[in-house]
């Protein structure tokens, strides 16, 4: 019946999630009672091999991280398309295979383009 579906298979995961979160917070909060607290400014400084930190830590970083992130989105979505295809592969047979060859070839063209544009080079 539409609208009445209860994802009851996922209920144990929700319970697990609650228990795991409670464990994380609980361990930190209970420990808070026993822990010593002796704070002074040197201890609260960010670690930088024993010297006073120089400059801002959140400085500009390489553009390559952005490129990797964008490529990840492309490839991950492609993987999301491949999964259902793989599951029903037996039922559709040869037709599914040809479709996927075309799909992967198109993807490969983009992949080679990214390679030639040196998106995977780090130096």
């Amino acid at each position, binding site marked *: 019946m539409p609208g009445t579906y209860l994802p009851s298979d996922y209920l*144990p995961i929700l319970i697990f999630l609650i228990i795991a979160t409670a464990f994380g917070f609980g361990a930190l909060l209970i420990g808070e009672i026993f822990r010593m607290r002796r704070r002074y*400014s040197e201890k609260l400084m960010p670690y930088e091999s024993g010297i006073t930190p120089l400059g801002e830590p959140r400085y500009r970083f390489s553009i390559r991280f952005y490129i990797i992130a964008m490529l990840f989105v492309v490839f991950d979505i492609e993987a999301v398309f491949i*999964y259902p295809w793989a599951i029903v592969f037996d039922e559709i047979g040869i037709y599914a295979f040809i479709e996927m060859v075309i799909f992967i070839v198109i993807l490969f063209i983009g992949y080679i383009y990214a390679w030639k544009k040196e998106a995977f080079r780090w130096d």
Partner: protein
Amino acid sequence: MTIDTLINIGINIGITIINIAIVFAVAMLHVAYATYFERKVIGHMQVRLGPMRVGPHGLLQPFADGLKLFFKEDIIPEDADKPVFYIAPIIFLVAALVSLAVIPYYQGFVIADINIGILFIFAMSSLGAYGIVISGWSSNSKYAFLGGLRSAAQVISYEIAMGLSLVGVMIMAGSLNLTEIVNAQHESPYGMFAIPQIIGFVVFVIAAVAETNRTPFDLPEAESELVAGYFVEYSGFRFALFFLGEYIGMFIMSSLAAVCFLGGWTIPKFVTNVLPFLTYVPGIIWFLIKVYAFIFFFYWIRATVPRYRYDQLMAIGWKILIPVALVNILVTGLVKILL
């Protein structure tokens, strides 16, 4: 709803909670002794003894370490982004722990038998990357920031290779449900998918090592350059939560390898035909043997292989593993059609 159905639901939830408690307790005990096992294995590989002081052969060392971390001062750097800093290790740990719910430990024992088990584990390992990134960003320390960035780029790069390496298994099993994948392996003439899917298996293992940030791919925490990487500012029990998350992540990856490629709790039929007495060994024993063999493999390469450079790491992920995994998918599909 009648009283009876309510009682039924209550009983079911009660059983689920008991199961979760068992898995949770075993997972914690596993982490404690996985650290001991690691130190012993690496110690002996380097011709020393490893921990020996606490208890006979150092057997109580994990508890001593746990207690020490529990009572250590919880230092939060002044410039840290406090709420985000607080929550990051919990996100990391919870994402790792929740994946335990979908792993079939033996016939019929799985906390949540959902039909998208593999996808769920991938989703959770992606969520774990958030814990890493925001811990690196919120610490306001250069080492943590660089470690977080590197780790994020590494985890997402290898996740693609890992996801694609499992597609061969999905084609052969016709399901994303981990229990059905194990059953499909037991039915197939090979007994385990590692034999026909050997390429996928190798890609998976390499990607799994990178995904869990282990040597030789432990660039995010490269001690010699980044001190400890993204958790450099964490101390006491917050550090312990990262540690727990990492070891549970290793357990998840090992179980995923055991379930998807090595036949989970089953043993191949051609083995039991020759040695019929092996069928009396309970499934959980086989599962644990396979998982611990993998964990031993993790330690073994840590003791053997030096760390990669970052450009090499990215080159392996993008230029070798992804094309190999894609070709593997096409070959698997072709063979499946021809046979």
